[in-house]
């Protein structure tokens, strides 16, 4: 242990950062967990590297892959660094043709679809962006550094300087404040209850202070790519303005005037004044698709070079294609099998546990995703989160136990309808669950319907409105996209009276554990809270969660440097044609 190096960082670290450093030094955090956690808390790349070097058994230079803001050094974004190194070894110039889901809306505040996220994020940027490292680690975007106060109730963001909007006007703290106010007024699901109206203040042209409703150790995630609507928009950008009507942004790509057409696609050209430097490519041409099958066909027909997102079933040929640069990043994407806990056949938790014990998770992963997924344990804490507690035992298929639980609950010949929406592999999942459940004597009738009606009819009907989703079906499957933190899953789907709580789960113990997690700003406290959450959910089993599946994207090997988030955003600032 090199205490000199460690002390260099400790001297300038705030209490939350110090807690993380100490946890890593004491071996309570893995290297990966430390890098992720430190990034969230705003520890700079240099500082992270120093800590890693200090705690390493061999002398080594600071990790080149560590990302984060903070400390006293202003680190260039990973994207810009990658751009520089990519430019040195690859050809410059040219354009990339990209297949993306058709956007429903390119209104930065109101957009709800992955296509919109992908298009808007080409021009507009976040305070905290995604690093190329993985789908969890955030790094400096428009905020160069961010620092919490002692308990994480106030966050100070130091903004990147000399950044200009595409029209040449300077980017300032007022733009950030106006954006936050707009989002709070619109009821943004990530910021609701976290950042109150008036909570964001510009203390000087390059500094924004955000005073939260209560301490939150994960706040930077809520102003990052993982809260897709929090792209920073100009102060004068009125609510309801869309990118195609008023092209704007600070990002590497400018929307080509007149190119946006909902029916066909959109084009972006290089922003020569981008703060991150000159991008290797001249521009991006997006083509909009309604399904992944035609995307894959277009790639095979050499009409697109990259696909922002596809699924295993449609993209099998790409996975096997040696000329395709596959991104198969582990992600928190998952399906929840909700079971009504308040009434009906699954009100008894033994019955819910019984169903969960019929899941053959490895088989599901292999058959549905060709292995490109991780085991789920009937809770929403994905193993990629730094506070995931692996000590909670993994539930495995146990038909005998399932039968004994049913017997103990006094249930025989259980028959239920398993509702599912027509989306990707979900109908196949329902069919496989049916056959697995049958081994324990549980008869499931699978009912698949179009997504246009499914959400409103089965998952979360509008009526009765109180409590939310109380009209949900007894048993069904719902999809959840990737999030950098589990807050949304915990708050909306599982907390009492959560807006997406279709299982009507109502557990004071869980609510208390979630509240502890939200308030926890130290690593140990977060892990302890997660241990409780995982244990409670495994015991109560309001949902079955058999897997978290990988996010699939990719490009032709004639391009390098493309990476994507799990939320449809694709990053091309470091992409170049291979020479």
């Amino acid at each position: 242990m090199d205490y000199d190096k460690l002390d260099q960082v400790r001297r300038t670290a705030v209490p939350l950062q110090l807690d993380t450093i100490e946890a890593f030094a004491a071996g309570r955090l893995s290297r990966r967990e430390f890098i992720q956690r430190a990034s969230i808390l705003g520890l700079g790349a240099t500082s992270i590297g120093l800590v890693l070097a200090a705690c390493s058994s061999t002398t080594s230079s600071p990790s080149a892959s560590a990302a984060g803001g903070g400390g006293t050094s202003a680190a260039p974004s990973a994207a810009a660094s990658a751009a520089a190194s990519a430019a040195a070894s690859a050809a410059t110039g040219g354009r990339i043709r990209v297949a993306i889901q058709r956007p429903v809306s390119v209104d930065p505040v109101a957009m709800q679809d992955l296509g919109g996220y992908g298009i808007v994020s080409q021009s507009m940027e976040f305070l905290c962006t995604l690093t190329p490292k993985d789908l969890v680690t955030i790094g400096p975007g428009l905020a160069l550094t961010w620092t919490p106060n002692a308990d994480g109730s106030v966050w100070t963001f130091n903004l990147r300087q000399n950044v200009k909007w595409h029209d040449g006007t300077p980017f300032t703290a007022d733009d950030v404040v106006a954006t936050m106010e707009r989002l709070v007024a619109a009821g943004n699901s990530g910021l609701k209850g976290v950042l109150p109206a008036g909570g964001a203040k510009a203390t000087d042209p390059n500094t924004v202070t955000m005073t939260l409703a209560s301490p939150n150790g994960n706040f930077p995630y809520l102003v990052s790519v993982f809260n897709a609507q929090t792209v920073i928009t100009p102060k004068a950008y009125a609510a309801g303005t869309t990118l195609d009507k008023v092209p704007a942004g600070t990002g590497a790509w400018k929307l080509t005037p007149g190119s946006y057409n909902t029916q066909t696609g959109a084009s972006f050209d290089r922003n020569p004044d981008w703060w991150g430097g000159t991008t290797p490519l001249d521009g991006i041409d997006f083509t909009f698709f309604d399904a992944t099958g035609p995307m894959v066909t277009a790639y095979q027909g050499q009409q697109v070079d990259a696909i922002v997102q596809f699924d295993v079933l449609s993209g099998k040929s790409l996975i096997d294609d040696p000329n395709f640069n596959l991104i198969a990043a582990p992600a928190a994407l998952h399906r929840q099998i909700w079971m009504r806990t308040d009434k009906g056949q699954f009100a008894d938790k033994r019955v819910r546990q019984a169903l969960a014990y019929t899941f053959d998770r490895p088989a599901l992963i292999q058959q549905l995703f060709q292995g490109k997924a991780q085991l789920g344990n009937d809770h929403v804490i994905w193993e990629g989160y730094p506070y995931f507690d692996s000590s909670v035992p993994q539930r495995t298929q146990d038909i005998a136990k399932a039968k004994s639980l049913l017997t103990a609950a006094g249930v025989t010949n259980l028959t239920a309808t398993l509702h599912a929406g027509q989306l990707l592999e979900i109908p196949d999942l329902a069919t496989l669950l049916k056959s697995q459940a049958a081994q324990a004597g549980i008869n499931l009738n699978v009912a698949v319907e179009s997504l246009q009606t499914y959400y409103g009819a089965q998952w979360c009907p509008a009526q009765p409105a109180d409590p939310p989703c109380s009209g949900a079906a007894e048993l069904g499957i719902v999809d959840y996209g990737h999030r950098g933190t589990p807050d949304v899953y915990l708050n909306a789907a599982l907390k009492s009276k959560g807006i997406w709580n279709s299982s009507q789960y109502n557990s004071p113990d869980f609510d208390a554990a979630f509240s502890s997690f939200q308030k926890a700003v130290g690593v140990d406290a977060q892990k302890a809270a997660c241990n409780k959450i995982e244990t409670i959910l495994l015991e109560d089993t309001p949902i079955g969660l058999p897997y978290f599946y990988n996010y699939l994207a990719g490009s032709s090997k004639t391009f390098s440097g493309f990476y994507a988030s799990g939320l449809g955003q694709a990053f091309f600032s470091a992409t170049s044609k291979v020479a």
Partner: protein
Amino acid sequence: MARFIGRRLLLSLITIWLLVTIVFFITYVLPNDVGRTILGPFAPQETVDALNQRLGTDRPIIVQYLDTLTRVVTLNFGDSYVNGKPVLPQLFDAMVRSAKLAGLALLLTIPIAIAAGVYAARRRDRRADRGIVLLGVTSSSIPEFVTGTVLVVVVGVQLKLLPVIATTPPSASIPTQIAALLMPATAMAIVYFGYIARMTRAGTIEVLQSDYTRTAAMKGLTPNQVMRKHVLRNALIPTVAVIAVQVGYLFGGIIAVEKIFTYNGMGQTMLFAAQNKDLPMLTAGVILVGIVYMLATLAADMTMAWMNPRIRLDSER
């Protein structure tokens, strides 16, 4: 002729009113409200309610219906619920795309199918006739999306002869656009070949057996002269009617082909509008497609009347 056209226009107005009413009520009875459909399942209820209020979709149904009728009468279809842009320019763009595809498909189909039908009729019950009939039945039995998929895989992906996406940038040259549309147009042409060829064959056979055709031949006209002056203009009357119906279908019904080739014509545009309860877009789209049908059948009727004056005289009596 003027009375004929006038009567047809009056009927058209009634047809349009019926179309609008049916579309309105079908959209209204579908589950899920407009705001929820647009904003998605994860949007807060307050946001959904605010959007419904802004769009006026929370008003009583009769108020919404009268509002819709007013918009149709004043040709002010308003803005799309989904993207907030005026509906008519978007539909005209979609209409132009559909027209290009339909035009190319008809250009490929009509001359070949008519020639094949006439050829078969003149060689009735011989091998050529049987072959063409068999080909026609087979080609019209295979759905166009099956043919389209085969073309995409073989011609587009494996041989890479033609692009698999039929959509081209607005600035694309005409040869580029034709190349992009060739596969979907061929997929449809293969299906329509069967209908048109067999209808032409049947009409030609009937006319070839008629007294006036025999008279023309006995007058000393060559077979080609008989075909050109007497047979074709009578034999093709039913074919013209079939083509008119196909024109309407080409504008609004080829959703599967548009999806396979990623081509946003009227079919895809209206499907998207229906799925997202975008009533202004859907209403205007249905009316436009209805107008296309009516114009096509009117043109067909006028063509048939020109080809056979007895049709015109009968209608004016």
